[in-house]
């Protein structure tokens, strides 16, 4: 990294120490802008997830970095050098495709060796590296098999080995777990995470599953309609969502819509002091932030309210209650499971947990 920084024409390009820099990238298909002015830095060794619904542009961004599409405007830099002007086969980037894209006419061994063979790596070296790569994904017993004989999970491991053997600077993963069934997904998630920690390669992961993103990532980049909604670590994005969309997309929340007047925030029957400018305001309040208030005592930093239990969904360790706290105002509350509840109860939450979000 430092060597290329010394050779790079612009000192500024590496001032952030980032591995990959997306600078003002936009992509248009026909008359629609699928990506609008995206700027993003990826740090070396990090596990960054592009999260979003279908149509959000996450796959397009991935393909731009891989080289299968060209940006309409903007630039992409990697390691202090311009990336988007290079064809895919010259980039130090490898992809794990959504449907794995294993070559059906080659054995597992030949699939994994492909990247080395096309660069004329000496044959003696190839054998050892292929074995090593297969062992890393626990597929060493299947070296001679054809892809058509493998299950989905097995094919995915081979695809992973095929990409990693080339020691890319950046590994792109295009929703690799979405074709797997639930149990296998969980298992693969865990394996992917350890693998990334172990080899230290930077991962750029694309998914629409927010739970997956939270479990795996060092940072999440949430995309919405071609623009970045928020980029932060999972904990940060959960505790401090920037917008209502983010608050609702990641985890569950109660969106409280009201206004601030002369230092008091009012959302339906809920009121609390807030030193901010007058005007409409929206707040995100996570269901687990609301607790029962058996003794009725409340601190200054807390908000107390009465609510009637309308619905109780049991979930094992916790349960989700739907509370009616005012005329037509409902809140969802997550409590440790304690038995059926009825009638009116008193609830309490900290003012700090009502996070102000933009609409």
């Amino acid at each position: 990294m430092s060597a290329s920084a010394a050779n790079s024409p612009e000192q500024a390009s590496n001032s952030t120490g980032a591995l990959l820099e997306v600078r003002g990238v936009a992509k248009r298909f026909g008359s629609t802008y699928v990506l609008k002015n995206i700027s993003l830095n990826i740090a070396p060794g990090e596990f960054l997830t592009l999260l979003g619904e279908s149509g959000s542009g996450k796959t397009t961004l991935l393909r731009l970095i891989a080289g299968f599409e060209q940006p309409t405007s903007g630039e992409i830099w990697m390691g202090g050098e311009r990336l988007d002007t290079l064809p895919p086969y010259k980039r130090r980037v490898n992809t794990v495709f959504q449907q794995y894209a294993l070559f059906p006419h080659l054995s597992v061994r030949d699939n994994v060796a492909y990247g080395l063979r096309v660069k004329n790596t000496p044959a003696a070296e190839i054998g050892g590296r292929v074995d090593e790569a297969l062992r890393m994904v626990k597929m060493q017993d299947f070296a001679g098999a054809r892809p058509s004989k493998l299950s989905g999970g097995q094919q995915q491991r081979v695809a992973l080995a095929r990409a990693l053997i080339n020691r890319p600077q950046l590994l792109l993963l295009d929703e690799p777990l979405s074709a797997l069934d639930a149990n296998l997904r969980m298992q693969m998630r865990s394996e992917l995470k350890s693998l990334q920690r172990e080899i230290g390669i930077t991962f750029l992961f694309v998914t629409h599953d927010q739970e997956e993103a939270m479990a795996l990532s060092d940072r999440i980049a949430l995309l919405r309609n071609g623009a970045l909604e928020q980029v932060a670590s999972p904990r940060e994005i959960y505790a401090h969502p920037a917008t209502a969309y983010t608050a609702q997309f990641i985890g569950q929340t109660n969106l409280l819509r009201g206004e601030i007047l002369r230092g008091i925030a009012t959302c339906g029957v809920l009121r609390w002091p807030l030193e901010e400018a007058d005007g409409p305001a929206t707040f995100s309040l996570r269901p687990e932030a609301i607790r029962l208030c058996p003794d009725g005592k409340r601190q200054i930093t807390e908000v107390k309210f009465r609510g009637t239990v309308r619905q109780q969904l049991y979930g094992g360790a916790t349960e989700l209650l739907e509370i009616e706290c005012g005329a037509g105002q409902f809140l969802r509350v997550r409590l440790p499971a304690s038995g059926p509840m009825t009638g009116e109860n008193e609830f309490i939450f900290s003012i700090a947990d009502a996070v102000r979000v933009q609409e």
Partner: protein
Amino acid sequence: MYSRAYKSLVSVPPLLWVALFLLLPYALMFAHSFWAVHEGVIVHHWNLENYKTLFSMPLYAEVLFRTMRIAASVTICSILLGYPLAYFLSFHARARKELLYQLVIVPLWVSYLVRGYAWKTILGSDGVLNGFLQYFHVTHEPVAFLLYSPFAVVLMLTHIYTPFVFLPIYAALEHIPRPLVEASHDLGANSFQTFFRVILPLSMPGLLAGATFAFLLTLGDFLAPLLVGGPSGTMIANVVQSLFGAAFDWPLGAAISVFILVLTISLLFLSELLEKRWVYK
């Protein structure tokens, strides 16, 4: 779901037809090949003379080898023309792909005779091509070998069979999932390497089907030589045709026909075997 009556009803008529109009005629031809001609009449005198003649007389061997050479040339040329065209349409044509495809198909519907005749008028000493060359002073005399030569036969049949070879190759190329091509590029292979390592191997079944078709049909063609082949461009089917015509030796003609039939079936079998080996899911 289908009753025995239903199944009988649908199988019996075609079976009968096939037996009567395919099996029986082939059997007759087979029988004829063991008979002989005596003073202008076919006698049912069972013998192997015809096959001996076919394999020992240099005349027949020479024509047979020339036919094989022509068939091989036509196949190779058709592939050299048809494959790049199919590749271009499949991987590089965007909006106009469907239209271009139709344009390649159109000549298939145009009469074989019409296209053969066109070449006849183009290649002759007084033909269009010679006229063109002389008009622009490229040559001063008519170029002779253009017409009535094996060259003309190869040229005409390549023209006929290029679209035939194009079709299965194009179908095979279209079936290659595009992510495979992207994966190859992603792993560091340029377009050239991607073609030879991924696209070509996966298109082999289509290539094989087209090649088999072109080779076998050229092998048994007798019209092209009559149109543009001349004496030096005679093929084995012309020999058969004359044996059933002026040269009147049906048994010998039948023997050569049986030989062509056996050759065709063997090559088909071989082609099918290879195809099974090269088909990937």
